C-alpha cells in the first residue's frame, strides 16, 4: 500500500492553462483527489495546444495538456446550465480546496465569489492564481505567461551586450508560480487542520515572478542597478560560457571559478601551455583576456563531442554540461535514473511520458497513479462515487445537458 501524503484530500479545480493546474499537480502527485472541472464549451487552452496526436487538433489529442495533467480526474460541467451550476455547488460543498485560475471576475460572474463559496462550505480554502492578483487596477487585464515575461522584467535579463533582445519562448513564470502557491496552500491546510478555519489565497504571477530577481529590485535612496546584458558571462569567473562542439548545433557549458579549477581544466584538456601562460593563470587575468580565452577554449571544444567535453571536465572536478535539447533530455541518464518522467498509458497518445515531481521524498515518493484524463472521463465517477448522486439524478442531469 502506497503511503500518500494527501490521502483523502478533496480538491476542485476551476483550472485554466498552466500556473493554477500545476499548483494542484503537487497535490495530485502526492495522492489528493483532484477534480479538474472542464467544459467543452470553453476548452482549456492547453487542450487546444500542440503537439497533437497525428497532428490532429482534437480535444483529447494534446500532448501538452497530457504532459502536465497526470493523476487528475476530469469532469465536464457547463456552469451556464442551471443543473450544471447545481452540480458545481455540490462539488464546492464536497471540496477541502477549491482552485481558480481564470481571469479575476469570471468566478464572480458565475455567482461563485469567495463569500458565496463560504455559504456553501464555511471552511473552504479558495486559492486563486492570476496574472496580477485579484485586486488593483490591472487585475482584470487579459494576458498570458509570455506577456508576464516582459512585465516582470524577465526578458530584460536575457541577451548579448549591444544586440537585439532575445525573448524566452516559454511562459517562464507560469512554471514558477506553482512552487510558491502550493507552499502557501499547504500552510493554509495546516492552519485549517488546527483551527478549522479556511481562507482565500490571492496569488499574482507577477508578484511571485519578481522573487527570482529580488536583489535587483531592492530599492533605497541612491540605489543603482546594473542591468547590462551579459550573455552567458559571469562577473567573477572565466571561462564561463557555452562553447561549440563537434556536430550540428552541439554545445557544452563550462564554468571555471577558481585558479585550481583552471589548472584542472588545462590538465584534463591536455593543454599544458595554457596552464603555464600567465595571461590566464589568475581570475583577474582570465577576465582581462576573456575574449582570447573563450576563442582558445572553443577551438579545443570544437574538436570534441559535447558528451566528451562534459565527461572529461567533470572527471577533473570542473563544472561542465551538455546544452541539452529535448531529445537529449528525453534520453538523459540522470533524469531516467531518478524517474523524472512518468511513463503511463494514455488512451489516445499511447505510451506517454508525463512530467514527474522534481524531487524524491524518501517515505512518500510521488508517482503516476493514472494517466492524464480525457475530457470528461470521470464525470460519472465524480458524480456517483464522490458526490453520491443516485443513478436517476445523474441521468437527469445528463439529459438536461449539464455535463457538456
Amino acid at each position, binding site marked *: 500500500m502506497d503511503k500518500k501524503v494527501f490521502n483523502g484530500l478533496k480538491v476542485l479545480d476551476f483550472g485554466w492553462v498552466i500556473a493554477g493546474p500545476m499548483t494542484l499537480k503537487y497535490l495530485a502527485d502526492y495522492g489528493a483527489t483532484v477534480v479538474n472541472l472542464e467544459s467543452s464549451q470553453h476548452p482549456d487552452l492547453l487542450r487546444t495546444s*500542440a503537439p497533437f496526436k497525428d497532428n490532429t487538433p482534437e480535444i483529447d489529442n494534446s*500532448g501538452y495538456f497530457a504532459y502536465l495533467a497526470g493523476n487528475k480526474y476530469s469532469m465536464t460541467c457547463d456552469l451556464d446550465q442551471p443543473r450544471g451550476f447545481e452540480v458545481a455547488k455540490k462539488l464546492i460543498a464536497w471540496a477541502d480546496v477549491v482552485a481558480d485560475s481564470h481571469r479575476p471576475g469570471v468566478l464572480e460572474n458565475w455567482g461563485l465569489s469567495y463569500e458565496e463559496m463560504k455559504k456553501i462550505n464555511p471552511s473552504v480554502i479558495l486559492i486563486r492564481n492570476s496574472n496580477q492578483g485579484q485586486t488593483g487596477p490591472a487585475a482584470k487585464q487579459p494576458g498570458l505567461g509570455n506577456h508576464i515575461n516582459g512585465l*516582470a522584467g524577465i526578458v530584460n535579463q536575457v541577451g548579448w551586450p549591444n544586440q537585439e533582445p532575445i525573448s524566452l519562448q516559454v511562459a517562464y513564470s507560469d512554471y514558477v508560480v506553482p512552487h510558491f502557491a502550493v*507552499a502557501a496552500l499547504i500552510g493554509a491546510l495546516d492552519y485549517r487542520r488546527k483551527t478549522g478555519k479556511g481562507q482565500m489565497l490571492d496569488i499574482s504571477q507577477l508578484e511571485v515572478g519578481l522573487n527570482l530577481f529580488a536583489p535587483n529590485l531592492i530599492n533605497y535612496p541612491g540605489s543603482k542597478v546594473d542591468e547590462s546584458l551579459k550573455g552567458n558571462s559571469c562577473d567573477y569567473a572565466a571561462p564561463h560560457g557555452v562553447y561549440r562542439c563537434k556536430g550540428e548545433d552541439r554545445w557544452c557549458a563550462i564554468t571555471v571559478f577558481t585558479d585550481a579549477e583552471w589548472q584542472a581544466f588545462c590538465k584534463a584538456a591536455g593543454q599544458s601551455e595554457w596552464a603555464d601562460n600567465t595571461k590566464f593563470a589568475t581570475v583577474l587575468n582570465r577576465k582581462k583576456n576573456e575574449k582570447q580565452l573563450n576563442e582558445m577554449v572553443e577551438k579545443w571544444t570544437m574538436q570534441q563531442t559535447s558528451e566528451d567535453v562534459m565527461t572529461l571536465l567533470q572527471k577533473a572536478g570542473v563544472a561542465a554540461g551538455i546544452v541539452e535539447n529535448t531529445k537529449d533530455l528525453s534520453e538523459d541518464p540522470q533524469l531516467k535514473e531518478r524517474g523524472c518522467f512518468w511513463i503511463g498509458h494514455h488512451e489516445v497518445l499511447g505510451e506517454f511520458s508525463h512530467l514527474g515531481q522534481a524531487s524524491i521524498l524518501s517515505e512518500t515518493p510521488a508517482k503516476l497513479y493514472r494517466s492524464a484524463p480525457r475530457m470528461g472521463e470521470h464525470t460519472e465517477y465524480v458524480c456517483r462515487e464522490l458526490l453520491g448522486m443516485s443513478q436517476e439524478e445523474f441521468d437527469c442531469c445528463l439529459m438536461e445537458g449539464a455535463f457538456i
Partner: protein
Amino acid sequence: MVNNKGMLSAYRVLDLTNENGYLCGKMLGDMGADVIKIENPRGDSGRKLGPFYQQIPDQEKSLYWFAYNLNKRGITLDIETADGQQILNRLIKKADFIIESFDSGYLESLGLSYEKIHEINPRIVMTSITPFGQTGPYKDFKGSDLVVMAMSGLMYITGNPDSAPLRISFPQAFLLASAHAAASSMVAHYYRETSGEGQHVDVSAQECALWEIANGIPLWQVSHILYKRAGSFLSGRWSDTKQRLLWQCKDGFVSFYILGGPSGIKTNQAIVKWMIEKGEVPEYLKNYDWKTLDMLKQTQEMQDRLEKPIGEFFLRFTKSELYAESFKRGIMLYPVCNAKDIQENAQLKARDYWVNVRHPELCADITYPGAFAKLSETPLAFNKRAPLIGEHNSDIYEKELGMSKVELALLHQSGVI
C-alpha cells in the same frame, strides 16, 4: 480575526544552505517559521555575492544576502568541529525542518547523514538541494547555474539560431530549486503532521529547471519536433512559422504576439481597430478575417504580412503609451520592464506589494519585493531583516541552550562559533 503570527510560527527551521538554497528557508520564514540561518564563523559564501548596498563590496552589504535571508535569525557554527557538531545535534532535536545545499556526500562525511539526523529526531523533515540530486550517475557532477541551465532545456531554445544558447543573466537554477524545495518541504511537513513521520526531501535543480521547457518534451515525444532557438520570435510550437514575441517601440520593447483562438481574435481585432482610428492600416489588414487564422496552417509569408504594419505602428509610441492604450482596449500587450519600471508599477503599488524593512546597522530603510501570496487569515509578514554574522548567537546559545558567557567566549576563540 486575522492571525498575525504567521501560519508556521510553531515550527523551527535550521537553514544550513549556501546561496543555492537561501530562498527555501526565506519562504518558510515569510510564512512565520522560526528560521535559524547557520553559517560558518567566517561568514556565508553568499555574502560575497553582489549586487552590494551602495556598491560597496562587504560581507554585511550583499543585497543578494539581504534579499534571500529576510525573515531569518542567524548564528555562526563550524559544523566541521566536534563541538560544533554536538551543538548542531542539540539544535536538531528541537527543530522541525533542516535544509542544506552541500555537495552530495559532504554531510555523510561529517557523520551527519539523513539516517543519523533521523535517529536524533525522527519527526524532522530534511531537505537537500543539489544540482542533480543525491542519486544517479551525475550525483557527483559539479553544477553551476550555467551548467544546470544548460542541462535542463531552456537554454537550448533561447538565443539566436546561429549563435550560442543563452541563459537568463540573473542566475535562476537554484532559485527555482529552492522554491521547489520549500514546496516539497511543505508536502513532507503535511505528512509529518498527519502521520508523525519525518522524511528526506532530495531536490534536483536540473529537474526543477526542466519544468521551464514547457511543451518541449511532449513536442519531441509526440511529433518528433525539436524546439529550437528563434531570437525574439516564438517558433516550433504550432508549425515552422515564427511569431514575433518582442517588438521595438520608441523607447524599448513590448511583449505581444499574434495569436489565434478566441482570446487572440479579441486582441487582434482591437489592435486593428486602434490602427484604423489612427488612419494607419493597409486594406488587407483592415479586412482580414481573424476567425480564419489557424496557427497550425499559417504560412510565414502571411504571418510577416500581418506583423509588418503592426510593427511599424508600434514604433510610433513609447512602451508606456502602448501599455496605457492597450490597457484601455483590453489588448494583450505588455511593456518589457526594467527594475525602475517595476518599482513604479501602479498595480504593484495599489496592492501594497513592496515592504519597507529597517536596517538599523545602515541607518536606512530598504524596500524589498513583498509577499508571494496574499492570505486572508494568515498573511505573510516581514519583520526581520537578514541577520548580521552571528547576530543571534546569544539568543540561541545562551538563552535557549543555556550556555554560559565563558563557554561562548571559549567557542568563539576556538573558531567554533
